[in-house]
């Protein structure tokens, strides 16, 4: 985990430096009339200092003997796959619409993340989709995307 923490603190420091640079571009203004970059600059500097302190603290710590719960390759792959799938799912809202893309996502989640029988998967997916659609679209009036593909095919 020591390496992970070192990388993390370097990443925070890089972010902090990027923020301070952008804040400088926005303009600090003067003390009597602070500009739009004033607070982001201060926050960026504080973040950089704290990330530096965290980095020093990590360097000074000795690696422990017992195994901790870090990032296991299998978990990273599983989480990466599900996260990517969620991004793809949202991308497809615009293309095939909310109901179709949601049904496909639910099939995947019910079947692959925690394996259930196919009949259960279809019933659970259908019921969850129907409940969500009725709640958000019918009762709460949310305008869920219908999908450009269907509009294109109909026209």
């Amino acid at each position, binding site marked *: 985990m020591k*390496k992970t923490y070192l990388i993390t603190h370097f990443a925070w420091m890089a972010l902090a430096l990027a923020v301070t640079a952008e804040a400088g571009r926005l303009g600090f203004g003067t003390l009597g009339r602070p500009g739009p970059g004033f607070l982001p600059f201060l926050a960026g500097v504080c973040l950089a200092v704290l990330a530096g302190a965290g980095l020093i603290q990590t360097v000074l710590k000795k690696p422990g003997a017992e195994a901790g719960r870090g990032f296991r390759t299998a978990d990273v792959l599983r989480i990466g796959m599900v996260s990517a799938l969620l991004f793809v799912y*949202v991308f497809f809202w615009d293309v095939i619409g909310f109901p179709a893309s949601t049904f496909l996502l639910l099939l995947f989640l019910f079947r692959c993340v925690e394996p259930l029988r196919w009949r259960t998967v279809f019933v659970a997916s259908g019921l969850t989709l129907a409940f969500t659609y009725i709640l958000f679209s019918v009762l709460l009036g*949310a305008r869920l995307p219908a999908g450009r593909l269907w509009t294109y095919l109909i026209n």
Partner: protein
Amino acid sequence: MDLSHQLIIGFAVAFQPVNLFYCFLGCLIGTLVGVLPGLGPTAAMALLLPATFHVAPVTAIIMLAGIYYGAMYGGSTTSILVNIPGEAASVMTCLDGYQMARQGKAGRALGMSAFASFIAGTLGLVGLTLLAPPLTVFALKFGPPEYFSLMSMGMVVLSFLTGASMIHSLMMACFGIILGTVGTDTVSGSTRFTFGLTELMDGIGLVPLVMGLFGISEIILNLEQHVDRDVFKTKVKGLLPTVEDWIQAKWAILRGTVIGFILGILPGGGAVLSSFVAYAVEKRFSKYPEKFGTGMIEGVAAPEAANNSAAQAAFIPLLTLGLPANVVMALLLGALILHGVTPGPLLLTKNPDIFWGVVASMYLGNAMLLVLNLPLIGLWVQLLRIPYPYLMPAIVLFCTVGSYSVANSITDVYLMLGFGIIGYLMKKLKFDSPPLVLAFVLGPLIEYYFKSSLMFSRGSFTVFFTRPISLVCLSISAVILLWSIVAGLRRRPLPIPKEAP
């Protein structure tokens, strides 16, 4: 207008059928969220925030508040029957509650938990009713420097109290402030950190941020571990505690109430911390401290009283100063602002119906929760038996659709997923989310008060140190920071756990 008149106004608002309905709905959803691990009150409130846009502000806040204190009640059910806290404030209830269930006293534990919650919640409300008006008068003396210093103190205290590392918590507070500056600067009109995206011109939405950090991140984290909930196979009967139970628990309830109330008001305090402190204090006061953890009824009563009292007390700084004491209150602050209501000292004079309506609804909500949690306990036990694989896809779906429906924006959903991944990494690497969310909500206000103070003083920082209230707040922050630095230097470096293969 005296207190009784104000309370009458409040009850007149709270007894309106629509408000009664939303109060009940909030309590019901809160209990549900508390019972089912996986979606905490913060995420649930964020999820339902868009659903409140078509109702009056007072109705919206009544429902959202109901979710918060309802979750405090519901959380104990899971702790007692499954040994998994339904939400963070019920962690301590697991220790003795589950042991009582194992000894066949599940009903008495659940009953004591509900009664302790009701008594503490009601006493906390009495405190809120009595303390809020004078505090509002006091808050009228606050100017921009006082608000800036108070908010800064709130963030420092929260960073100090949450999480294992003060450095990590303060980093999260800085990151929250930076995220809060995304969008158009209201003073200069220039855009900040938008990367040319028009969707970010109005800033990052509170709902996608909270749903990502608290909802999606939890789902991702659960992908790593198999979530197994073995509901204790016991018949839940005899929900009324015995006379002996009452004698044993009476002081625990009162002490828990007082501890919860004090810690609930303080910035950075809240239900989670107060339940831990109440349990520790009860153990210290007990003649049999060694028996704690083996099924002592005081071990159930004290933390439950504390977290419910704290939940009510946390409304005091929000409603009187406009200062959220914890992340849930930060969300409520966001909700009030979205509804066009400015919380703070003027709320009581400008919108007494909202102020007293919410307070009165909480009295009713506490009574509703007692009814929901005792006679309907069988229903909640059945809900606990729903396997996690069935719940997880539904939670994912609710988060995505909930984020989208705030502004019908797909960008918000992408942001939420991004924050979900960030939230997961933060959880893995021990960076806490509450300071981030609090700083995100307070960031724009801090910037406004900071700039106003400097403009008022023509660029002199002495304005923060020459005004007594501001000086006190900044001194407290400085002491806490120094304390953390000294404690960090004196502590021997802890070993970093090695990564698992």
